């Protein structure tokens, strides 16, 4: 591949969005439109002829490198076979608070946990366990989080009410009392 084609490959790979042709031109201001088009063609042909699993596509408002559709199924399938991951204690605690106090803002979770929970909320969100369910009327109108259907699915629950003893726990969390779960659950114990 020529050097402009390589530069295009790097930029298209690194960009978080498709890049229109006129923006690609800013990568090398000395390259003519014809040279740019030739480099794009070279890159596309390279992926096609050389048998890569990716292809160069002009769609979605610009150029992007995409995985070819025939690999989608294999990747999806692999997802099922991957060794299950456990959540970290920090993520579990945050998830528990969101589950029992939803809708809840990040600041409220932080008040209970005593630490920043930004990255934890982000990863729970990426995992599809929580989602933004609205905005608070409080100052700054912070986002409110709640659990998702995937969360229920994870615990084989039909609806949130099936979470054990929601009210007592919610009250306990709200009051931030240092009661142990045993006291809250009494004889009904969770396990």
């Amino acid at each position, binding site marked *: 591949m020529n050097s402009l084609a390589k530069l295009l490959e*790097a930029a298209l*790979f*690194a*960009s*978080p*969005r*498709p890049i229109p042709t006129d923006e690609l031109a800013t990568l090398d201001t000395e390259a003519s439109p014809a040279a740019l088009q030739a480099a794009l063609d070279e890159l596309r042909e390279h992926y096609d002829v050389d048998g890569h699993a990716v292809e160069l596509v002009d769609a*979605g408002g610009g150029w*992007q490198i*995409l*995985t070819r*559709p025939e690999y*989608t199924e294999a*990747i*999806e399938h*692999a*997802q*099922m076979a*991957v*060794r*299950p*991951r*456990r*959540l970290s*204690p920090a993520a*579990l*605690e945050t*998830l*528990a*608070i969101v*589950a*029992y106090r939803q809708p809840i803002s990040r600041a409220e979770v932080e008040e*209970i*946990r*005593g630490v920043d929970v930004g990255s934890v909320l982000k990863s729970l969100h990426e*995992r599809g*366990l929580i989602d933004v369910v609205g905005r608070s009327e409080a100052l700054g109108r912070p986002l409110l989080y709640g659990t998702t259907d995937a969360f229920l699915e*994870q*615990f084989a629950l039909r609806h949130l009410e099936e979470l*054990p003893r929601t009210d007592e*726990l919610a009250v*306990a*969390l709200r009051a*931030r*009392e*240092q*009661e*142990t*779960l045993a006291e*809250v*659950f009494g004889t009904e114990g*969770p*396990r």
Partner: protein
Amino acid sequence: MDDVTTGTSASRAPGSAAGAAVGDTELGFSVDLPHYSGPLDLLLALIRDEKVDIYDIPVARICQQFITRMHHLQLNEAAEYLEMAARLLRIKAQMLLPRPDGEEAWEDPRTELVRRLLEYQQMREVVDVLERLGEDRRNRFARTFVPASLSPVIQAPLSLSLGELLAAVDRVLRHAERPEIHDVISRPIDVDGFIEVVRAVIALRAVARFRDVVPPGAEPWEVLSGLLALLELARRGELRLAQPRPFASVEIRRELAGEAA
């Protein structure tokens, strides 16, 4: 600690001779002076610059340099640097004490400091490694654009049981902080008591100052009581308060008329 605070803040006072001198050198120095990430960093830099043995630090010299550089960098306000300066002064004093004769174990007062410096130095080596690795990785981009519908991502399923979730609830409940409740103890200000103090002071001195009435480091209720006592006595005509110029300390004088009355 107190000594250091007083010493450094005095030399920074605007208009004072020492302050001006420091200010001048700052202009010449500030461009080249590196930024230190803490007192240990500064101390380590001194040891390197002075080419002294870390296991046999000439404490008096290094201490002096440390304080001087604190001034240049205007670090006088930073508690961490002050604490280190105080520590160095204490070690310096301990080094001056006569050592016990003979073979008896003499604990070098520098031991703990050397340990901390070595530990810190070691960590700085790791920082160099991380910096190199991080810079290399920073210059490479990973793929960030992943349209969910077209390119599924391998993401491991979760291993998560209800028991785990409830155990987490348990932890949250146990560790959530109790609401902080402060006991407020009312401490009534004692104007009458301070009136007696003021009377005793001005009986002894022709001219007294506020700090003669309220010692440095007094608690707020004492400062308030002292101030109110002075104002009350001035109102009663027992003393006169005067301030020769703005921001000068207030002079307290017996009111001769009041005395006569």
